């Protein structure tokens, strides 16, 4: 049976690794990304790599932070996915937020807080609703969203994103309960500090990574491949009883003293 996986944030970091892993697992890929010209060769390389696996891939370069754009992409997806097929995995791996302090010089504005919480938090609900409204989501299904230890640690300038992660986790729990009857599981993956383009825009990311490396009992940082492997695990049929959870994927980093 043809299975599609929708990866939001497919062109880099955890989303890219996830798209490649799910393709290797046999999924056709719908990938959403937001890239300027300079990044397009990497996007083309992703497409080629997945096509060489014998899988289909459709990519949408769109600012889906805007509701009108999100709806347009959903409609394109509805028109592109054959009637006999559907999406059985949704991965939300979006890094489109503001990293600024909450008080003092250069602090986050009201709009900064609203936008970050919307795009990195509430957005998950909008996508789930959009897919369900268009009868695109298969049963059983899997929804995975990416959170971080910033949900409980006050990293410098991470406040707006931390709030968004808490929103994301709350929505994960709620959606898990509301979608149980459809046999769709909903979980967050809490990756350890991972060296991705998204990490590198966080002020002080070098120290963040260095501190994580000192803590990590394996003596290395989490990689996008580690995260992709856990996505794959949570898409396995045997994971059907894991839902509403925040699943750590960090080699023990968060529990190390």
């Amino acid at each position: 049976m043809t299975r599609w996986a929708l990866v939001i944030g497919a062109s880099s970091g955890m989303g890219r690794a996830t798209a490649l892993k799910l393709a290797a697992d046999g999924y056709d890929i719908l990938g959403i990304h937001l890239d300027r010209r300079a990044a397009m060769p990497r996007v083309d390389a992703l497409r080629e790599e997945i096509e060489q696996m014998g899988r289909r891939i459709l990519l949408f370069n769109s600012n889906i932070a805007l509701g009108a754009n999100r709806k347009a992409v959903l409609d394109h997806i509805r028109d592109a996915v054959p009637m006999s097929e559907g999406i059985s995995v949704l991965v939300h791996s979006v890094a489109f937020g503001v990293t600024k302090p909450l008080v003092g010089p250069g602090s986050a504005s009201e709009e900064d807080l609203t936008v970050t919480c919307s795009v990195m938090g509430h957005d998950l609900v909008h996508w789930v609703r959009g897919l369900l409204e268009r009868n695109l989501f298969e049963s059983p299904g899997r929804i995975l969203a990416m959170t971080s230890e910033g949900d409980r640690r006050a990293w410098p300038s991470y406040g707006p994103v931390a709030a968004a992660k808490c929103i994301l986790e709350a929505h994960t729990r709620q959606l898990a309960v509301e979608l149980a009857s459809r046999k769709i599981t909903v979980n967050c993956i809490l990756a350890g500090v991972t060296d991705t383009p998204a990490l590198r825009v966080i002020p002080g990311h070098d120290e963040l990574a260095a501190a994580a490396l000192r803590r990590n009992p394996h003596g290395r940082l989490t990689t996008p491949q580690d995260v992709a492997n856990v996505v794959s695990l949570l898409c396995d049929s045997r994971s059907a009883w894991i839902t509403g959870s925040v699943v750590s994927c960090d080699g023990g980093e968060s529990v190390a003293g």
Partner: protein
Amino acid sequence: MQTNETLNEVITIISKFAERREAVERVDASTRILDDLGVSSLNFIDVVLEFEEKFNVSISDEQLKGISTIGDAVNAIATAQGR
């Protein structure tokens, strides 16, 4: 494309996303895209994508960080065009 033409095209593109219509009538090189014209931070990336498409250029991350005013945008495009 000459600088004046670039300026006019930049203003045309930004106008599509500007919330403060009255401010659009009075723009000059020092006009701030977000603060003065009311372009939302959500829309700013779309503005840059349209710059790249219209002027057939690639705007780097460094250039992007430096774009605050209309004049900054014109300069970034000129630099990307190798002018």
